[in-house]
């Protein structure tokens, strides 16, 4: 890379904060933080980079002038959908199927994305209002069948009338096109796009066969509608960000994170707004994977507990699971997207008692950051999990967020006593301990469910704890799940930005075709050939050749009479030979049984291949992170006090040592029960747990 341009800068725009991380060979990692500034997110991005620059004693301009690569993730698309701030969108679809996207495969769109509590109350459930009005959906006389044969030719005159109707009458500025079976034969969709480009060149046009070339017309249509709806906003946002960065002295490329965990150059990302959905949490998982590899422990359960939600994802042997039925706001879409499961349990989650039973409940309502927990003193008068943390001794009112905010313990105590402890007939401490246990148990149940769902055993995993609140609960659920060890990473507060910097350029390609098992390798290679060609050309265009290019194939297989498809990686390179293909089939059978249980495979009806995937990576050069030398185990110099905290093994409050993270040195060992305060979070070690600060300033927690 160019000399004088030694920094990699990554900025992630989240719902509340915009985080930056700066990397350079041989220098410590630097962090920056600023508030997000919707809807003009670019302002917050510059603020955040400026904050990182300041910590290095540099101006924003000086930092950017020395930056070789800028990586970026943003909630701009999520935000456009959630706030209904997208384009006036029209949809052209196969005649006779105009309602597909509106009726959401029946009840699926009514209950999809709801918690079980709400599903059990159907009278109060509705679909989200569609992103495209019924009046702006026009049926086109055309038809392709299940094997891709065109049964009915497109009538271009009718298409032209339809487009003019949408543009002139409904003033749409974006048109999505989704025809039945277009993923097998996109010819009719492509003709429509050519026609729109000719007669309405200002209209943003996007095809389902480009954006989501997979079976299932409802999900494919919903996807392309979202892509059309958010397309203009995404394009405008990325181009204004590039302009701003250029005006501030940066002239390198801007790389944008995708929900599948890879980067794309900004001009490519601009045409696939759908890919940016939930790219922040995806980056977080990539960050966790990178950390797992750095620490040589590739099996990771990554957990993140912020103000409103608890998120969890699973990385096995460096492999990340994709979500089967991703949603944004309550819209289904189909894209490769890293699975991140969440429940409404965070520091701001409100504690309530169930009428009738008095059983304590955590969330799903949240006090958010305003008014926030009672102890913030910002007017919140409903007790939250953060208040509970304080009442059981885990938070120090004086040094919250490095002392930048003082917490009101007395008020939290009063409110908690009145609303929770007294009705339960318990002391404040006993009630707070009880609520804390309920929260920890629910998290344990969630993690157990999603690991079991994949046929995995939590005991084989290392647990990463990210986010402001996770370090205060991980000692509980980590112990109950019996994970191998736990890590509270140094970058815990800017994990998504860390993920950006750990990511590669990734292009995902897929071809749908139904091939029986066995089929000659030749037939499979024929499907991969055009994808390989496209991928190599694309990466070459982006400057990746030779050993900077990695091409991984995978095949989706299923048993012919069953609905579950399993994406099975091809171990060797593509094209493959007959033996390698047989290996893929054998791997599929093993994966299937592991995931769906013993005896779940119905082999008698045979197997079939349904989808052929190619992941093309342009491997980024990135500096090695330097580990600091580790010293002695004695953590005594970092001990700053002693106070009672809740200790599970003792079933009560026990006076325990308090440590200041900033004073700990690599190699120091803290024995639980103890509390370590960092500037952004608190780490609680339960009895028997030992926390060691490693050379990267991660706290590694082992069980006795």
């Amino acid at each position, binding site marked *: 890379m160019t000399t004088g341009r030694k920094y990699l800068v990554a900025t992630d725009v989240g719902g509340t904060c915009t985080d930056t991380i700066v990397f350079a060979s041989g220098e410590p990692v630097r962090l920056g933080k600023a508030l997000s500034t919707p809807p003009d997110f670019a302002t917050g991005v510059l603020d955040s980079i400026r904050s990182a620059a300041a910590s290095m004693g540099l101006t924003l301009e000086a930092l950017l002038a020395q930056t070789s690569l800028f990586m970026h993730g943003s909630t701009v698309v999520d935000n456009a959908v959630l706030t209904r701030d997208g384009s006036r969108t029209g949809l052209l679809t196969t005649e006779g*199927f105009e*309602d597909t996207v509106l*009726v959401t495969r029946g009840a699926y769109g*009514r209950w999809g994305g709801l918690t079980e509590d709400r599903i059990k109350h159907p009278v109060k459930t509705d679909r989200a209002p569609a992103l495209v009005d019924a009046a702006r959906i026009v049926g086109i006389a055309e038809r392709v069948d299940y094997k891709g044969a065109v049964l009915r030719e497109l009538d271009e005159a009718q298409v032209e009338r339809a487009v003019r109707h949408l543009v002139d009458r409904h003033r749409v500025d974006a048109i999505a096109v989704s025809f039945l079976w277009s993923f097998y034969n996109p010819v009719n969709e492509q003709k429509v796009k050519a026609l729109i480009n000719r007669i309405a060149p200002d209209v943003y046009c996007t095809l389902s066969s480009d954006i989501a070339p997979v079976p299932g017309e409802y999900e494919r249509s919903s996807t392309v509608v979202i892509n059309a709806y958010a397309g203009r906003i995404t394009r405008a946002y990325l181009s204004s960000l590039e302009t701003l960065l250029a005006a501030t002295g940066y002239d390198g490329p801007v790389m944008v994170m995708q929900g599948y965990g890879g980067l794309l150059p900004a001009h490519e990302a601009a045409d696939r707004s759908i890919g940016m959905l939930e790219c922040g949490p995806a980056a977080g998982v990539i960050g966790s994977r990178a950390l797992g590899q750095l620490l040589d422990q590739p099996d990771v359960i990554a957990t993140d507990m912020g103000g409103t939600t608890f998120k969890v994802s699973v990385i096995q042997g460096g492999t990340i699971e994709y979500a089967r039925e991703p949603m944004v706001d309550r819209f289904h879409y189909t894209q490769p997207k890293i699975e991140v499961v969440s429940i409404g349990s965070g520091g701001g989650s409100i504690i309530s008692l169930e009428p009738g039973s008095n059983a304590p409940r955590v969330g799903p309502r949240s006090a958010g950051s305003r008014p926030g927990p009672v102890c913030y003193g910002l007017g919140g008068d409903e007790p939250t999990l953060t208040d509970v943390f304080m009442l059981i001794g885990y938070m120090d009112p004086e040094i919250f967020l490095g002392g930048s905010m003082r917490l009101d313990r007395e008020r939290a105590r009063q409110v908690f006593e009145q609303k929770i402890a007294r009705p339960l007939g318990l002391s404040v401490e006993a009630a707070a301990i009880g609520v804390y246990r309920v929260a920890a148990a629910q998290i344990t149940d969630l993690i157990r469910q999603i690991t079991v769902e994949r046929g995995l055993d939590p005991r084989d995993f290392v647990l990463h704890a990210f986010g402001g609140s996770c370090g205060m609960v991980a000692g509980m659920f980590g112990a109950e799940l019996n994970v191998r060890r736990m890590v509270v990473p140094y970058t815990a507060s800017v994990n998504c930005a860390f993920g950006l910097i750990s990511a590669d350029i990734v292009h995902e390609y897929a071809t749908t075709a139904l091939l029986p098992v066995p089929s000659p390798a030749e037939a499979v290679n024929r499907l991969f050939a055009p994808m390989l060609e496209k991928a190599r050309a694309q990466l070459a265009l982006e400057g990746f050749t030779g050993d900077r290019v990695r091409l991984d194939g995978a095949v989706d297989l299923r048993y012919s*009479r069953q609905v579950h498809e399993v994406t099975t990686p091809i171990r060797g390179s593509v094209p493959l030979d007959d033996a390698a293909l047989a290996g893929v089939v054998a791997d599929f059978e093993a994966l299937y049984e592991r995931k*769906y249980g*013993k005896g779940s495979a119905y082999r008698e009806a045979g197997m079939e291949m349904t989808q052929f995937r190619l992941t093309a990576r342009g491997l980024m050069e990135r500096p090695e992170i330097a580990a600091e030398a580790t010293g002695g185990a004695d953590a005594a110099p970092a001990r700053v006090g002693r106070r009672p905290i809740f200790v599970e093994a003792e079933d009560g409050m026990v006076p325990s040592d308090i440590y200041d993270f900033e004073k700990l040195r690599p190699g120091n060992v803290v024995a639980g029960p103890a509390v370590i305060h960092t500037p952004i979070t608190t780490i609680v070690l339960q009895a028997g747990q030992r926390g060691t600060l490693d050379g990267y300033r991660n706290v590694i927690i082992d069980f006795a």
Partner: protein
Amino acid sequence: MDPITFSIIRHRLFRVVEEAVMTLKHVSGSAITNEGHDLMVSLYRADGSLLMGGVGFLHHLTSAAEACKAIIRRFDGQIHEGDLFLLNDPYTAALHTSDIYLIAPIHYQGRLVAWSACFVHVFDIGAMNPGGFAPDAVDIFTEGFSSPGLKLIDRGEMRQDVWDTILNMVRGPEMVALDLRSMIACNNVAGERLIALFEKYGAEIVDDACRMLIEQSEQRLRERLRELPDGQWQSRQYLEVKGETYRVVLTMRKQGDELVFDFTGSSPQSKYSVNCSKWASLGGLFAPLFPLLCYDITWNEGVIRPVRMIAPEGSIVNCARPAPVSVATVGAIQSVNNAACATIGKMLAASERYAEESTAVWHANHFAIFMFGTNQRGGLSIGILTETFAGAGGARHVGDGVDIGGEIPNPISRMANVETIEATFPVRYLFRRRLKDSGGPGRHRGGTGGEMMIVAHDAPDGGIDYVVSGKGTKFPQSDGLAGGYPGALNDYVWIHADESDATAFAGSLADMKGRHEPISWGVYPLRGKDGLYVRWNGGGGLGDPLDRPAEQVVNDVTAGAISTRAAEEVYGVAFKDGVLDPTLTEARRRDLKARRLQEVA
């Protein structure tokens, strides 16, 4: 028991059911289980009483409880750790033969502590017609294999002779085996997880929590009932099979904290398989009761205690052996669902506090069409048209019904994509969409149902066959509430095509040339260029249609939900040059109201 431990145990119990449901779907891998969610998993206490009902087809929750109790009675002294029982006899506890219950005792430290039970609609049960619904059946003996209880696994050992015997009696034995295996895996998971809970907290505490969970549900439902007014509410459903008409008549009486569902006045049992047994009726009334009255209460034995049913023996809702019942789940049971939904809706509407929970009847008519035949790859395909799960929402106090929004008794169903069906069966869809004017008119409009048409496509045998056990073509069943109109009816039309290519892309039933034959009961072919047209019912409306804001009526016309004729005649909206005319509308509405009085005089 302290509320905190209670809260944790309850959450765990709930997760046990969730995990077991997941196992069932994973192992089975069938479309009806995974797409239609035609399944149920629940936990029961040692005495067979319902402990934790999962979200599935809810009319099974009480029936599976009775199935547990029947097993306890029949196998007294022979229930061992590691056993697994099968029961599918409708006269013992099941709904119909194709919904098989597999029931497993759960032991902890050698003592029976609980039961788990689950069902799926199996691939086939050996009835006269493939797929389980048997319109040609004349009695229970022609509806396939049925057992009042047998031991399938003895102390962990599969009884191979029994297993082989069952599979010897069904079509597609491998697929039925897979269904059974998925239910075995499901019970295993439920058992393992429940035992882990006992290990962590001890038998006494878990048992206490279970007892408390049931008491609490009972207490909360009784409190709710006390808040509702005392009174009686009636509803009536008509069913028709081959020209014979049947009634399901319900009087629901509520006094204090008790609720009685009285089906006195319902028709004698039918010779056709639309009947249901008493356990099925009980399940049928609870299916809407759980989500309508107990949306925030755990579904268990406690909810069952304050409720009583009176169902005359020998009637269509309590038929006597050997009457056929294979179509019950979409026959008499669904009418019981509808009648109970209607009376509960009216009771809620009579309460200041609970009026917002009231609803007209949702999706009153499953059309349950099973297609079977050789598919385009030469294999055998049997399967339900999953559009039957995509009913219409009834209008609610809080808003319109949801168009093609599902149903109450099975809260999380969905229908398959057209592309999925065209890949599985040798058929081609001509259209699938909302059905205009199907939602019952009202101040709040009922959700629309849908319509679809299919033809054979690339079929090696020239086509396939299908079983239709539909009712609902003669009488509307999605009743309106408080002046709302009922939702529209179902139709099934066999189009005997003339052999011209002109209708290959017919955009509507009217476009489809040839003779149109309405059908509703039996086995029919889909061959050559013939078509099958199905339209399915809308949800009931709520309130006076003349009170619906005119702009909303106009929106409905624009969105294709209602016709201009309905807007004018039923909703009293007037258009001038295609645009809403508020003055004329007001006049027309006044006139329509006045005519309601004149016609009487």
